[in-house]
């Protein structure tokens, strides 16, 4: 008898952790998509991507403040959508500007130089934001009135979590449509396959790269707002850790592979939440969960560097 009860409790706990992991993972997936798309077209890691995620959260905060008179007249789903779309546009534009100012002058330079520049851009955004917004944690406004959706048994799921998951998946489907179903998406795929050949076929590589940066940054901004809705406290350095974890997710799924990034994000979110949930019951500090993503990264790079869904790329001389 006692065994069945504890078994049920275990199952309930496990499903709860799994769900929490999925909610977090869907956000990682959104950020990971930006890494993977930029890697796909430019073959470099945009270190500043995590900071665009942070800028998304801050633009959400300020839009909510400035547009407050108008937002209060709207029903909350409309105001959430408005804030989300506006900050996606703002951050998309910022992504394009960053690419234009910092990365474009280095287009033909060694990859290492671009990487160093990206680290510089990341630090520049973080510390400039610290100067502007202050270093302290700021509360993120409640965009979605929170209520518990009674689940089965002892599971607790809030409507915020469900909305985050649904929005994230909707955005991913939207991205899939853009990449697979539009002319620009076709150009993106061509560029990622072979930049020289695509430009010979009449693809304007510069425009496509700008578009990719804009798209990735917009997704990161959406991720930032969703993340801040789940964990409503934001600061200028909040982008570093989720950004790195999302990068690990992109590598896990196979960098350059769009469905892979989404899958990787979900896996990282779930594994991290499970480790955090069960390490406490084993008497290990839950702070170790911050290191989990990096352990996964090192393992994946040793055993399957091309990632779960990625193709093996041979280097040609």
């Amino acid at each position: 008898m006692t065994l069945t009860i504890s078994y049920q409790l275990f199952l309930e706990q496990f499903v709860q952790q799994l769900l929490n992991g999925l909610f977090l993972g869907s956000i990682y997936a959104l950020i990971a998509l930006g890494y993977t798309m930029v890697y796909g077209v430019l073959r470099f890691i945009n270190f500043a991507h995590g900071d665009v995620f942070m800028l998304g959260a801050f633009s959400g905060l300020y839009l909510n403040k400035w547009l407050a008179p108008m937002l209060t007249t709207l029903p909350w789903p409309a105001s959430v959508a408005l804030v989300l779309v506006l900050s996606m546009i703002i951050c998309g534009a910022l992504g394009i500007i960053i690419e234009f100012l910092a990365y474009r002058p280095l287009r033909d330079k060694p990859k290492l130089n671009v990487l160093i520049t990206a680290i510089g851009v990341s630090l520049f955004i973080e510390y400039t934001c610290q100067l502007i917004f202050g270093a302290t944690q700021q509360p993120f406004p409640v965009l979605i009135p929170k209520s518990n959706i009674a689940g089965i048994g002892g599971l607790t799921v809030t409507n915020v979590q469900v909305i985050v998951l649904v929005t994230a998946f909707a955005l991913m489907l939207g991205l899939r449509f853009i990449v697979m179903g539009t002319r620009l998406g076709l150009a993106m795929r061509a560029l990622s396959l072979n930049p020289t050949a695509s430009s010979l076929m009449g693809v304007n590589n510069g425009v496509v790269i700008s578009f990719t940066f804009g798209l990735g940054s917009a997704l990161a901004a959406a991720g930032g707002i969703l993340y801040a809705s789940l964990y409503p406290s934001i600061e200028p350095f909040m982008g570093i850790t989720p950004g790195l974890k999302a990068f690990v997710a992109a590598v896990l799924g196979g960098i350059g592979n769009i469905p892979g990034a989404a899958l990787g994000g979900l896996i990282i979110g779930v594994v991290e939440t499970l480790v955090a949930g069960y390490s406490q019951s084993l008497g290990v500090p839950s702070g170790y969960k911050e290191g989990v993503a990096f352990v996964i990264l090192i393992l994946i790079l040793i055993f399957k560097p091309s990632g779960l869904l990625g193709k093996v790329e041979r280097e040609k001389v």
Partner: protein
Amino acid sequence: MKYKAQIFLFIALAASLGVSLCAGNIDDYFLDILLNVGINVTLAVSLNLVNGHTGQFSLGHAGFMAVGAYGASIVTLQLGDHLLQIFGGGSIATALTFLIALLVGGGCAALSGWMVGMPSLRLKGDYLAIVTLGFNEIIRVVLTNTSGDGPFGGALGLKGIASYTNFFWVFGVAAVTIYVVSTMVNSTYGRGFLAVRDDEIAAEAMGVNTVRYKVIAFVLGAFFAGLAGGLYAHFRSTISPEGFNFLKSVDVVVMVILGGMGSTPGVIAAAILLTVLNEWLRDFEQYRMIVFALILIVMMIVRPQGLLPASLFQRKKKESA
């Protein structure tokens, strides 16, 4: 001159011992800056072996520094009294104890460098950067989550570390680092490092064991970073995991980039310049990292070879050969 480098090493060691003996006459604040300069030179020159000469971009130098700092501090905190007793007290016993602590710290750092390097150095540039950054984070997370009463001191770190570090140790280690790195790179064997950097595929085709060279560069770099960490711990006498975060690694990377990747004199100059600038700009602390970030971006766009690139010093080398 056949033994130029060796003579340089002896002069440097003797000079630092000489200055150290009359360090009492030096202004405390000035001495503080000098010691900082020495530690940063060690860090920058050792990172330059990995990032500059071998062309492997590591972002985890502060992680190795942390391993060295904790390793050395735990030796002096836990075993310091025993060791002093064994060596019979006095200044020589102190020196021997400190030497053992530093070597243990450096050894631990080298070991962790080997453990990180073996798997990850099979990877190309940007992956390596992320793995080393990840290693840096793992070290910090693990140290922060250790028990506060244990030997690692948890999030608050370690306090009351004996302040053994003086002018001689700092500049002695800096001189040895410069000596080892520059003679190694200029030796026949060390050409392998440059070959790996210039064209890995060609080097491999010519029979250079690229992975082994990368691992050696990594382990040596980590060892000297560990020594610098040990010096730092016994200089500040308190250390905490937060002091060895990603930004500390970036500090060293900026020195290497500004000076010129692969140029030891350039990197030394940049380490001195940036350390002194840091002191001057203490009142503008909040702008410091913005300036560092801009240095990285502008250098990469305008002058990626650094302020004092290696090519400036190359002609002299040909004449002496």
